[in-house]
């Protein structure tokens, strides 16, 4: 381009000879000379082209140099184009100087070639530099524009929230992701306070802005506030922007939605807490299991020991005690009687221990009875007198047994042994307590689908220390004197409960009483033991064989039946008969009053409602017959329409 390489020079003079002179002087490849002969021509040329400098003759006909210059200046395009006035009259110079400063110079004719070349050269150089600077500036502006567009595009494209705000918190810009995150319409106005929860805004404007001032940036977890009022957890960065003088111009904040990350972290935390608690639980279970195993080991060892020892001790103690009986009755002198009393005390202790030990022995018969269960209300009626005798006089033993409980899956003898021991301990704990009491409770255990029964033995007596609570189930551990306790009672309770798959818990505090809570599995269906009817019923056993009569009597008494020698009283509820006419007599007896039970011994069949048991039936068959007869009272017959009957 010529303008880039050559400086264009406009020569304005009405005299052609002058043009020749100028051209001769300015003949240089750096200049492109354009000659015109008047002011209007000059204006036309300036309209078409850009010039580095104008050489303007002052004295021209029609439009002189000053007028021409005025019109050139009036044009915006060439308002700053340098003009060199040329004049032969020195008196005109004053007017030139007064005309304008800046890009204006003057020369007096005659022209000194060197001076003209130098002046034009200076203006041409100035022009070229200006062109170059303009070009560079344009390039820079264009580059900045590209950068700005690129940045804007980036900001709009990023998925992070980006906003610029001033020191007052006024939002100057917010990108699309920011508006989307907040749920803002594209043209909606927003303030920073409006798009953050108050607490987060407070933190940002105090802590955040201050920190950004000190360190340039600040970041932390914060929150944005959606238009719908929900908080969005974000990770936020604030950057401070300063002008070259170091004054804060504005701030940029970038925020990233961390809802998912936070939720994942929370889920992870929940999961971890769950795992931790599971580990704790499993560890506790393992420890408990280990404790049970250790205890079970000890119990098994004691059981093995007990099986033999119980027998041998009986054989040794029985003669000792028999001899003591004799000695005590012999009227010994006081000193000797004292000795005998001491031996008696020792032997009594040994006897108790031996009996306790014997109960540890793994009795196959007892194991066979493990499928038996205990029906609590009936059981309580049966054993309560026995249990009341286990506590010191004046200590009441009361029961709170929920009705309608399923049978407990523990054989009655085991259960009685366990509860007896607990009641006895409870009674002992109350011995020195004013207003002491013992309470036996039974209810459905919470949880486990209602399959477990919670049996409690409670007292308000002396209570136990943590040490005693921890050790009390160990065989031979006792807090009482050896003369009173064998230290086997609670070990037995534990063994009995564990054998049926139950567990024992203790809550106790010194001075505030103790509760033993047995969690025992229930047995929902099937014949349960302990279905004893009320103990006030009376019965007769009319069986000739004295031993059979004695046994049936014994079994009936165990069921709470008061057995009379003979009789035909109207209040009889149970009759055991035999002989050829017993079927008729039984029918008559059963129809005589409601709720009666009849057992026919030694016959094959009987009237409806009667239970038969063959001659020479086993004790088990007799017990079963009694159980059936007493349990069947008032109940319906079985599905075949026949009375429930047991035939050895």
């Amino acid at each position, binding site marked *: 381009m010529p303008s880039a390489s050559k400086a264009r020079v406009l020569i304005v003079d009405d005299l052609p000879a002058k043009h020749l002179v100028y051209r001769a002087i300015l003949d240089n490849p750096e200049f492109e000379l354009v000659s015109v002969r008047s002011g209007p021509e000059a204006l036309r040329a300036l309209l078409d082209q850009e010039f580095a400098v104008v050489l303007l003759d002052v004295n021209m006909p029609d439009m002189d140099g000053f007028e021409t210059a005025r019109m050139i200046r009036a044009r915006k395009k060439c308002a700053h184009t340098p003009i060199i006035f040329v004049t032969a009259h020195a008196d005109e110079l004053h007017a030139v100087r007064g005309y304008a400063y800046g890009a204006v110079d003057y020369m007096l004719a005659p022209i000194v070639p060197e001076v003209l070349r130098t002046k034009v050269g200076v203006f041409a150089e100035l022009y070229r530099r200006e062109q170059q600077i303009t070009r560079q500036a344009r390039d820079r502006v264009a580059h900045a524009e590209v950068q700005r567009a690129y940045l804007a595009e980036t900001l709009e494209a990023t998925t992070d929230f980006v906003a610029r705000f001033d020191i007052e918190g006024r939002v100057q810009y917010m990108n699309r992701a920011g508006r989307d995150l907040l749920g803002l319409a594209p043209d909606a106005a927003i303030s920073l306070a409006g798009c953050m929860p108050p607490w987060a805004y407070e933190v940002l404007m105090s802590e955040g802005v201050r920190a950004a001032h000190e360190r340039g940036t600040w970041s932390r977890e914060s929150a944005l506030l959606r238009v719908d009022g929900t908080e969005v957890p974000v990770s936020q960065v604030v950057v401070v922007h300063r002008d070259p003088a170091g004054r804060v111009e504005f701030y940029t904040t970038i925020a990233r939605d961390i809802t998912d990350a936070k939720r994942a972290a929370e889920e992870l935390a929940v999961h971890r807490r769950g795992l931790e608690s599971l580990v704790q639980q499993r560890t506790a279970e393992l420890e408990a299991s280990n404790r049970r195993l250790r205890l079970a080991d000890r119990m098994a060892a004691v059981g093995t020991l007990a099986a033999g020892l119980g027998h*041998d001790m009986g054989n040794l103690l029985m003669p000792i005690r028999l*001899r003591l009986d004799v000695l005590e009755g012999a009227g010994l002198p006081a000193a000797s009687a004292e000795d005998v009393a001491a031996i008696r005390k020792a032997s009594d202790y040994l006897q108790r221990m031996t009996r306790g030990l014997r109960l540890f022995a793994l009795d196959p018969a*007892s194991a066979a*009875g493990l499928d038996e269960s205990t029906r609590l209300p009936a059981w309580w009626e049966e054993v309560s007198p026995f249990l009341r005798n286990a506590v010191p006089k004046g200590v009441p033993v009361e029961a709170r047994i929920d009705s309608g409980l399923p049978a407990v899956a523990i054989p009655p003898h085991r259960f*009685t042994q366990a509860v007896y021991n607990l009641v006895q301990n409870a009674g002992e704990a109350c011995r020195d307590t004013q207003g002491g009491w013992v309470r036996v409770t039974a209810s459905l255990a919470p949880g486990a689908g209602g399959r477990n029964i919670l049996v409690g033995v409670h007292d308000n007596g002396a209570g136990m220390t943590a040490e005693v609570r921890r050790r009390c189930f160990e065989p031979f551990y006792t807090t009482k004197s050896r003369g009173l306790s064998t230290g086997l009672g609670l070990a037995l309770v534990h063994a009995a409960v564990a054998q049926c798959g139950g567990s024992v818990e203790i809550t106790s505090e010194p001075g505030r009483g103790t509760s033993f809570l047995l969690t025992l599995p229930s047995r929902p269906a099937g014949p349960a033991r302990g279905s004893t009817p009320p103990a006030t019923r009376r019965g007769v056993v009319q069986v000739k064989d004295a*031993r059979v009569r*004695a046994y049936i009597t014994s079994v009936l008494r165990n069921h709470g039946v008061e057995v009379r020698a003979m009789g035909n009283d109207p209040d009889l509820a149970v009759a055991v008969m035999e002989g050829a006419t017993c079927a008729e007599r039984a029918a008559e007896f059963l129809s005589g009053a409601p709720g009666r039970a009849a057992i026919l011994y030694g016959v094959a069949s009987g009237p409806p409602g009667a239970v038969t048991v063959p001659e020479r039936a*086993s004790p088990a068959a007799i017990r079963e017959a009694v159980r059936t007869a007493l349990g069947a009272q008032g109940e319906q017959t079985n599905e075949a329409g026949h009375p429930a009957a047991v035939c050895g």
Partner: protein
Amino acid sequence: MKQAIRLLCVDDNELIAQALSRRVAREPGMAWSGWLAHGTELDESLRRDPVDVVLLDVDLPGEDAFELLRRTAEAFPEVRVLMFSGHVRADYIDRAIECGAWGYVSKNDGTDDVMKAVAQAHAGELALSPDARLTHNERR
């Protein structure tokens, strides 16, 4: 005056037998009829010298006490045999009653309980000493 209850003991444990003889001697209404160390002598002894009650050890060495009980109960229905043992098991008690015993007495019970059981059996009641009753009741 009522006839004293004649009591015979079959037990290989001499200590028990001799102590029992001393105890029975001072028990009103009871008379000691003697002691046998072996069950094999029982039949002949009862034929020669009738008694009311026999205390029969369950653990006679080399002998089946239950079989001896069965034979004795059949041969001498008027004699009331009580099983006498340090082993108290529900199945033993059942078996004893099935074989003709009038009761079961635990050697781990008190001496008075033994005397009482003898009197009960003689009076026509089934006699279970407390320990035996506890064990038996559970299976009633």
